């Protein structure tokens, strides 16, 4: 038993790190994930924009990376909907319409569709979500595009008081914790929907809850339910993060949360260990491969000397030699290298690094 030695150590629990850790775990490696808090994607909607796909689709690694991630998200209980060939227009809180290709299933349900009678439902006391305004924008946009869609708005009193100020986080947590609340909310929505075929809500349908729980809720409402991501912390992004973390932990990935890596030990072009700045004394761990899925962390740990990454995703020095043969960059933006945009770019970066790390050391299966 080697408590602090792992086949793969991933630093950073953003989308890149989660993707890399999942792939390594799926290949049978023992994995540790070191992180300080959630990645920036918890602030967003957890979807893939059209422009990201345009920028990346010629990369040979892109399609397998996206396939892997879509399977991962679905098995973590927070499936994404859509596909990489087709763009839908998703309404934003500020009245814009964003061309997206993938989005969390319920967020994808809010797309601008022809011939769908829609009602936007706000909650009384919840600021930052203006149902009237959104319905108006919906109709304007539909008219502009010559779509026969119609949209109106209503505001609902939540069945249970959830403190002041009311936040989407409170509602989502009540949704997770309280079966009674879910039933009462579904009832209220069923009544509020009237003869509409779809209701659009601020995104509040649970963080820990999996897709099954949400599907049961939607069935109770009795029509299509779409979610609109709100201000940070945005529930769909948070949901994706929490479900993926729980999924990885369940699959035996060791989580080391809350303290940054303060040093990478390197001897003869090998990364021999990491020191985590835990209270009292550095907590040392080691990995046969070390994947850095953090752009700021990489700069902090390796300095500004890194000029690029090589074909195996290893950061190299000015002479073009890898800083360490078992050290891989899984972050979207290695300094001076490339700009991998958005969620898709990070998925690709994480996937690519884990693939390289896996093939570099041969098969994990030997262990």
């Amino acid at each position, binding site marked *: 038993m080697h408590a602090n030695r792992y086949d793969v150590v991933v630093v950073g629990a953003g989308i890149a790190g989660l993707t890399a850790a999942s792939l390594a775990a799926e290949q049978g490696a023992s994995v540790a994930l070191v992180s300080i808090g959630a990645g920036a994607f918890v602030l967003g909607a957890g979807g893939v924009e059209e422009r990201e796909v345009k920028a990346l689709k010629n990369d040979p690694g892109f399609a397998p990376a996206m396939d892997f991630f879509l399977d991962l998200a679905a098995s973590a209980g927070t499936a994404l909907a859509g596909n990489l060939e087709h763009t839908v227009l998703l309404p934003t809180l500020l009245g814009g319409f964003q061309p997206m290709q993938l989005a969390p299933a319920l967020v994808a349900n809010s797309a601008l569709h022809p011939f769908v009678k829609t009602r936007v439902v706000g909650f009384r006391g919840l600021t930052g979500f203006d149902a009237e305004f959104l319905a108006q924008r919906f109709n304007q946009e539909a008219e502009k595009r010559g779509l026969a869609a119609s949209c109106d708005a209503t505001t609902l009193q939540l069945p249970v008081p959830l403190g002041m100020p009311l936040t989407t986080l*409170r509602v989502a947590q009540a949704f997770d914790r309280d079966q009674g609340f879910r039933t009462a909310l579904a009832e209220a929505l069923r009544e509020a929907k009237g003869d509409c075929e779809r209701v659009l809500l601020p995104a509040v349908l649970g963080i820990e809850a999996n897709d099954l729980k949400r599907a049961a809720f939607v069935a109770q409402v009795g029509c299509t339910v779409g979610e609109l991501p709100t201000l940070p912390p945005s529930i769909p992004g948070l949901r994706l993060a929490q479900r993926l973390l729980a999924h990885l932990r369940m699959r035996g990935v060791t989580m080391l949360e809350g303290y940054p890596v303060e040093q990478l030990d390197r001897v003869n072009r090998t990364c021999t260990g990491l020191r985590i700045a835990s209270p009292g004394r550095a907590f040392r761990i080691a990995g046969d491969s070390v994947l850095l899925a953090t752009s700021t962390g990489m700069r902090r740990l390796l300095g500004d000397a890194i000029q690029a990454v090589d074909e195996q995703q290893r950061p190299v020095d000015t002479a073009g030699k890898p800083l360490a043969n078992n050290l891989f960059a899984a972050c979207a933006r290695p300094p001076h290298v490339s700009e991998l945009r958005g969620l898709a770019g990070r998925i690709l970066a994480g996937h690519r690094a884990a693939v390289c790390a896996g093939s570099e050391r041969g098969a994990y299966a030997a262990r």
Partner: protein
Amino acid sequence: MPGIARLFAQGLKGAHMPHDDFELDNCLKCSVCNTACPVYAAYPEYPGPKHLGPELERLRMEGLDADTGAVEYCLGCHRCDLACPHQVGVSEMIARAKGSHRKTLVHTVRDWWFARPGLLGELLSILPSVGNFFLKLSPVRLMMEKLMRITARRTFPAYTRPYRKSAQQRVGERVLFFPGCFLTYNRPDLLDKVLALLACNGIAAEVVESGCCGVPASANGDLKEAQLRAEKGLAAMATAVDAGIPVLAACASCGHQLKTGFGGALAGDNQREAQAKKLAAQTWDLGEFLAARAAEGLLNTNFHTLDHRVAYHTPCHLNSQGIGRPWVQLLKSIPGVTVDDLNAGCCGMSGTYGFKEEKYKVSMAIGAGLFERIGELKPQLVATECATCQMQIEHGTKLRAVSPLEILLEAYDGRPLPPAVGPLHGADAP
């Protein structure tokens, strides 16, 4: 002077913004701390760590009156600190605010006692059977609820003759063991087990006699008492620390406190702070220590085969030590033991918090997710390092909860697991 006037006066003198507020400026108000807070999720009246920490801290820093009773509801679980992507020490700000919160007389008296479990232990263990008898009587408990605002729905853990150092000399590698209050006054048998467990691994542990680590004191807003506990603890361990001897703690909260230099209780006392830092660098959680030995092939793995289906719960103060979950690996290495990692958040007990009458409901609401998860898994027993987590789990699930070290010792010498800490099967409510 009213707050605004004072601020204005300060402004005239030249605005004062201390430069140690660096951490505060790191707060981007992203609310990720709120998403991690167990109280925020269970208690809608609670404004959350973002507001009580960095937001109000700006006012407090300027000497403005930002006192609110809400700070009393902070568990001190450190989940906000761990979740913060920018390393803001949210909970420490709230702990300091707790220290200056003005409480009602009844709460002040009650919390004075709760801040001093060592004193309580010394008194109750003079005649433990009498103390335990009275603490179990329903009328006594109802009276305590009315007069002291201590919930009658829970039973106090039984007190016993406290652990006293025996003359028995142990041989082997030397370590110092910091037992804390619970092992000293409530479970000296568990303390014996720790020593036996270490002896099985060729380690001779000496027991520190310094009383409480100070976590209950800071949790109850008694910062003076926390400082006193820190000073006493440091003095008791000074020789060993200077000699570089490892210090072990089996209680997650004690371990957290020693590793964080007594959680800031010594701020301003440079000499002691330096000493505390040295102590922190030498402190090990018992599980961490054993797992590190296992990694070096030094753990005695002469195990009997057991037959346990265990669900493991991570105490918050183990989480906050940043050492992973050493007991999961240790327990899994025992033949015949299967371990489910619960991953269901905080239990809601937080030491004396769950005993407070006004917080009982919040405490149980926080634990609900954990109880539910345990109910789904239906383990034979629950293992967790923290004594009050054990109490809460037994209270909420009516399942037996033990310390993982007891399972390991059972694998070494067949010593049976203890009966439940409190009464099971629904006998807990009067």
